[in-house]
């Protein structure tokens, strides 16, 4: 009896310890889905980001450096796009419209660029206007330094919050032991700027000597999902872990998200990066994936077109080539569902102003989800 009590308490204790995340990694594949898919734009290589213009046309970034304008069923290539440093994961990346685009016409884009003293490239944020299928008034708002010829982890997603602040992400640029934990260096950070590129006075590290003052949070590996939670107005992020340990985080001012001090992942070689999954002073993800799905693109569903999906998250999987639906309760994932099985590498997913969801798939194009 004494033994069994001991055993029971031990079992309960270990169960508690192993329950850092209440949902396990189970994913459901529904036999029936409430939508059909229509490939509305075909023959795209790596459609990285999408933006929806007020005239119902679309802008699509191709990683290779092309900006495509899709209007009235036809694709055209926008001219005067900044020169892009195409190497490894780098290229023309995200695109987002100013919240007041209708009045000011500003389009924001992130991409990897050369320029500067060192060889290689790093992530850059620009804004420009679209005039007669050409970009004009182009301004560089941020250019990360130093350049490097490393091919990984440029980030990068762009989002605006309700107050009009602009957030964008830059990955650790393949230097995990140097960049993410050092706020005097770029890389492995979420940045916050005013819409004109100036630095908000209440950014967390503005008064810290030597710090990059645009930094809003740090300790990130490679964030390729950055959106506003439409209910709370907070910024939600997801990032690629190493092998295992992709994360969803809620981004808070000045916080350290732990990479590479803590991670639920391991090195590609199978060796461990650290024994720690938790550490004082670092934030825990609200969800993590083991094994990695390689997440890219993310949206909250708010439209009435998909009534059963209200306030669910949709996230693309590059690695397993499907669209993941996550049901949330109190900022915890309570259900996962696999949609569009084997569709291809899902690079981006967005809900357009018309309420429909659009999914960008590598080697295919843009799919529209049409409710049944």
């Amino acid at each position, binding site marked *: 009896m004494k033994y069994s009590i001991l055993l029971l308490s031990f079992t309960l204790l270990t169960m508690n310890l192993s329950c850092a995340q209440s949902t396990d990694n189970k994913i459901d594949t529904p036999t029936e889905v409430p939508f059909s898919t229509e490939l509305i734009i075909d023959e795209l*290589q*790596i459609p990285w980001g999408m933006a929806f213009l007020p005239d119902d046309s679309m802008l699509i970034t191709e*990683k*290779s450096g092309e900006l495509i304008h899709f209007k009235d069923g036809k694709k055209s290539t926008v001219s005067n796009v900044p020169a892009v*440093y*195409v*190497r*490894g994961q*780098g*290229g023309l990346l995200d695109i987002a419209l100013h919240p007041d685009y209708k009045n000011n016409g500003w389009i924001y884009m992130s991409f990897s660029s050369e320029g500067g003293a060192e060889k290689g490239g790093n992530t850059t944020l620009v804004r420009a206007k679209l005039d007669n299928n050409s970009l004009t008034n182009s301004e560089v708002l941020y250019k990360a330094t130093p350049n490097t010829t*490393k*091919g*990984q982890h440029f980030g990068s997603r762009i989002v605006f919050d309700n107050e009009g602040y602009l957030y964008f992400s830059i990955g650790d640029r*393949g230097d995990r032991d140097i960049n993410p934990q050092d706020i005097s260096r770029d890389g492995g950070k979420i940045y916050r700027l005013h819409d004109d590129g100036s630095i908000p006075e209440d950014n967390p590290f503005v008064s810290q000597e030597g710090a990059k003052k645009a930094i809003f949070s740090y300790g990130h590996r490679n964030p390729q999902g950055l959106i506003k939670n439409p209910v709370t107005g907070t910024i939600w992020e997801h990032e690629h872990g190493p092998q295992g340990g992709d994360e969803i985080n809620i981004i808070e001012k000045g916080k350290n998200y732990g990479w590479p001090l803590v991670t639920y992942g391991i090195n*590609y*070689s*199978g060796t461990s990066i650290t024994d720690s999954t938790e550490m004082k002073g670092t934030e825990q993800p609200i969800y993590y994936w083991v094994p990695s799905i*390689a997440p890219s693109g993310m949206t909250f569903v708010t439209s009435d077109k998909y009534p059963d999906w209200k306030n669910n998250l949709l996230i693309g999987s590059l*690695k*397993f*080539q499907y669209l993941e639906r996550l049901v949330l309760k109190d900022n915890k994932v309570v259900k996962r569902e696999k949609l569009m099985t084997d569709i*291809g*590498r899902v690079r981006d997913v967005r809900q357009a102003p018309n309420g429909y969801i659009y999914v960008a798939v*590598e*080697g295919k194009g843009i799919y529209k989800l049409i409710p049944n």
Partner: protein
Amino acid sequence: MKLFFLTYIPSVVFLSIFIFQDKELEESIKRGADIYTDFCVNCHMSKGEGVTNTFPPLANSDYLLKKREESIRGIKYGQQGPIVVNGINYNGTMAPMGLADEEIADVMNYILHSWGNKSDKTVTPEEVAAISKE
């Protein structure tokens, strides 16, 4: 004596070229390993095993070993559309990596001499340079 020189000198020359090339290949493989870690490992994995049905394997890959030119072209210009590797169909997209010809030669030499793969002929930057988009 004449016979000695006639055989000795060519063999020294031959041997030194051989050893020199070997050293050069070794250096190239070493550089290629770094390129692999930077650009390839996410998808093709650390032992070149890939992910079945998604990312083709490089270890003991019939495609890599038999289609040298296509493999180099894939790294240089990107690869899109259906290919068959070890009897399994793959229909994915690999973006062009933006590597220099020398880097492509290095990473080819690395993957051609890793995980049980063997190749008699070293890939040179000149060989890579000569391969066009199709």
